[in-house]
């Protein structure tokens, strides 16, 4: 164990800070602080700037455009980004399909897709879940039948986040109906402009459109768009899920939220005029969560170190996912409590960052309830927390 920071590390931190203060658009950071979604154009510019600097894909190997940083450097970078309220970049390309492509894809595929994922020119979405296949993902039924150089794809995906904004979708499809469920699945990359694809919105509980149904009717997909071998898609799918779950754990974001809450509790007054920061019951819970998060953060570092040493993380991503989402949900709960009455108003324009008037109540309170409500999804997506417990019981504990 060697956790001393060297002079180089300090210099690195200073460089990251300088870059952020020069390039991160103020409005993005501000919106991020109040929990409003960032404006698309500004997000794209921010990704471009990161890309130019070579910092957009922290975890990718250097040869594919990653940083090649040590785990500690990654840690420092994430810390600084979170502290500056930099928004998270869309994960579907950078954290999900990108690593699948450079790990299992062929040279053509790498050349075709990696640059536009890094630059943010192409947006991806995830076509895993189906109406009948959520937790039991391997039962999926969207079919791809080979016809010469193409697959003909028919079926339906559901809960596809941001499919309506995506240029490409990565999809799990069934290519062998006779094999065991896990052994008949292939991993396809599909251009969303291909004829036969229809996207229908699902309005979610916040009244907004994030989710979709995606229908495939005789969609022709070149066989060259298949990742790896036919019927080996489950292996790649699981690899992706490990990354997805680690990402969902969202350690840097939660750290930032804790720092933010620490500021709020100094401003927020209780009925008798005392600061919320002097309220032991509240502060005890905040520290409890912080302890949990710290444990998670160090676990993350340990896993990264193991991976660097060539020992893959595997089922530990399930633990990260459970604890990480529990921390997120507990933090969103505390934010609602801090806002008290001001958690009630639903201020749509402020949430979307298009309001002209001042909000009702303090600015931070605007998004607390939406974040709390929608945040319930974190224990569902990426494989529900119940399913993660099943994984731990079986794969880690051997039960």
């Amino acid at each position, binding site marked *: 164990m060697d956790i001393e920071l060297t002079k180089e590390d300090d210099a690195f931190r200073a460089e990251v800070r300088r870059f952020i203060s020069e390039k991160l658009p103020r409005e993005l950071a501000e919106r991020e602080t109040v929990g409003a979604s960032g404006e698309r154009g500004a997000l794209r510019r921010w990704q471009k700037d990161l890309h130019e600097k070579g910092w957009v894909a922290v975890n990718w190997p250097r040869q594919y455009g990653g940083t090649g940083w040590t785990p500690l450097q990654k840690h420092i970078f994430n810390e600084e980004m979170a502290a500056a309220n930099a928004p998270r970049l869309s994960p579907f390309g950078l954290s999900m399909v990108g690593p699948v492509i450079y790990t299992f894809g062929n040279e053509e595929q790498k050349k075709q897709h990696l640059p536009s994922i890094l630059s943010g020119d192409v947006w991806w979405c995830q076509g895993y879940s189906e109406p009948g296949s959520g937790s039991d993902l391997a*039962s999926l039924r969207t079919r791809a039948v080979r016809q010469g150089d193409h697959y003909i794809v028919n079926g339906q995906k*559901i809960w596809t986040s941001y499919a309506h904004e995506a240029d490409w979708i990565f999809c799990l499809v069934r290519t062998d109906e006779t094999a065991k469920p896990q052994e008949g699945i292939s991993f396809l990359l599909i251009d969303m402009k291909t004829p036969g694809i229809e996207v229908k919105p699902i*309005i979610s509980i916040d009244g907004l459109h994030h989710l979709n149904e995606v229908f495939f009717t005789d969609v022709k997909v070149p066989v060259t768009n298949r990742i790896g071998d036919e019927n080996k898609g489950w292996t790649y799918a699981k690899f992706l899920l490990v990354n997805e779950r680690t990402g969902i754990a969202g350690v840097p974001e939660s750290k930032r939220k804790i720092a933010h809450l620490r500021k709020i509790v100094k401003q927020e007054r*209780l009925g008798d005029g005392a600061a919320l920061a002097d309220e032991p019951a509240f502060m005890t819970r905040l520290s409890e969560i912080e302890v949990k998060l710290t444990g998670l953060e160090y676990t993350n570092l340990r896993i990264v170190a193991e991976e660097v040493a060539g020992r893959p993380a595997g089922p530990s991503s399930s633990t990260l996912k459970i604890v990480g989402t529990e921390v997120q949900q507990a933090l969103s709960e505390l934010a609602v409590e801090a806002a008290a009455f001001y958690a009630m108003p639903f201020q*749509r324009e402020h949430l979307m960052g298009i309001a002209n008037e001042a909000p009702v109540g303090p600015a931070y309170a605007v998004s607390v309830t939406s974040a709390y409500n929608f945040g319930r999804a974190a224990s569902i997506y990426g494989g529900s927390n*119940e399913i993660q417990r099943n994984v731990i019981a079986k794969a880690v504990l051997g039960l």
Partner: protein
Amino acid sequence: MEFALSEEQCLLQDSVRRFLEQNSPLDKVRLAAGNTHTVQRSLWAGASELGIPGMLIPEDFGGMGLGFLDAAIVYEMFGRYVAPLPFLGTAVMAPLALMLAGSEAQQEKWLPKIAAGEIIAGVAVTESIGVREDAGVKAGKGTLTGKVLFVIDWAEADLYIVADSDHGLHLVLPGAKGLSRRALDTIDKTRSVGELVFDQVSAEPLPRSSADAVARVIDAGRVMLAADTLGAGQMMIEKSVAYAGERKQFGRVIGSFQAVKHLCAEMAAALEPSRSLVWYAAHALDEVPGDARLMACHAKSHLSEVGRFVARTATEVHGGMGFTDLLGLHYWFKRIGFDRQLLGGPELVRLEAAHLQGWAA
């Protein structure tokens, strides 16, 4: 002592259940949530035929003269069906304020109208629970100046009952000069709250106002909110159990997995004991004055916590479906969330309870 509902009470609850089942299905709730107040008006007229607006109002004034336990079991049904109706302010808090603090003339003028379901009465007492920033209302000579947020049954009110910062209660007409009204969109679209800003607005004081009267109005409101959460939570459990019995994954219904069974069982184990707490708190408002305030605090804070647990867990059981507007589970989720914050979140209310018991300085 018999810790159970009387036969009349069971009948009352059943008739309200039937009324709401028939007249306030989810599509109707959605329509009302889309801000068509006409839905609310016609539904309230229907509720009047059951005597609901006047259930607490003495028979002399055209009401049914029932007690708080009756009101609580009715509001429980409202929560169950996420009914978009002005029950809390109009049928409970406003009549109680008039009965406790109003003059005979005021009672004669307003109570029969409320009882007949002719008017909607908004209630502005939130500022008596924890003044925030610039909010709060000061009384001058026959006028009010200041601001109140989160006025209950704000929309379309024909009358407002307003508490000032010295525990005075006042009647204010919505058209009064100097009164500005601003709608507050909240997470819960089934009940309306809004803001009132007073600039030297002429107001009619309720002559028998007192700190105790204001507190009793709030106590009653809190017990009702607890009852509402009870009903909404019960429905969420039933919906979860039904969904767990239908939805199949891994070739079997998800209700056959022990993890899902336990989620459902935990909800039931949390909610069922709270029912008795709500009943007793409501009973105490009428019959055990010494316990009433403390029990109101307990019921409000405990049901807020249990409600939150049930709302979350039910959402978890529904998987992705729980997040869709189409299924509409969120109407219950948000209703429970709103009940939690209105008239004081559990943190604040628990502190009040600790003060009442002499446990906190």
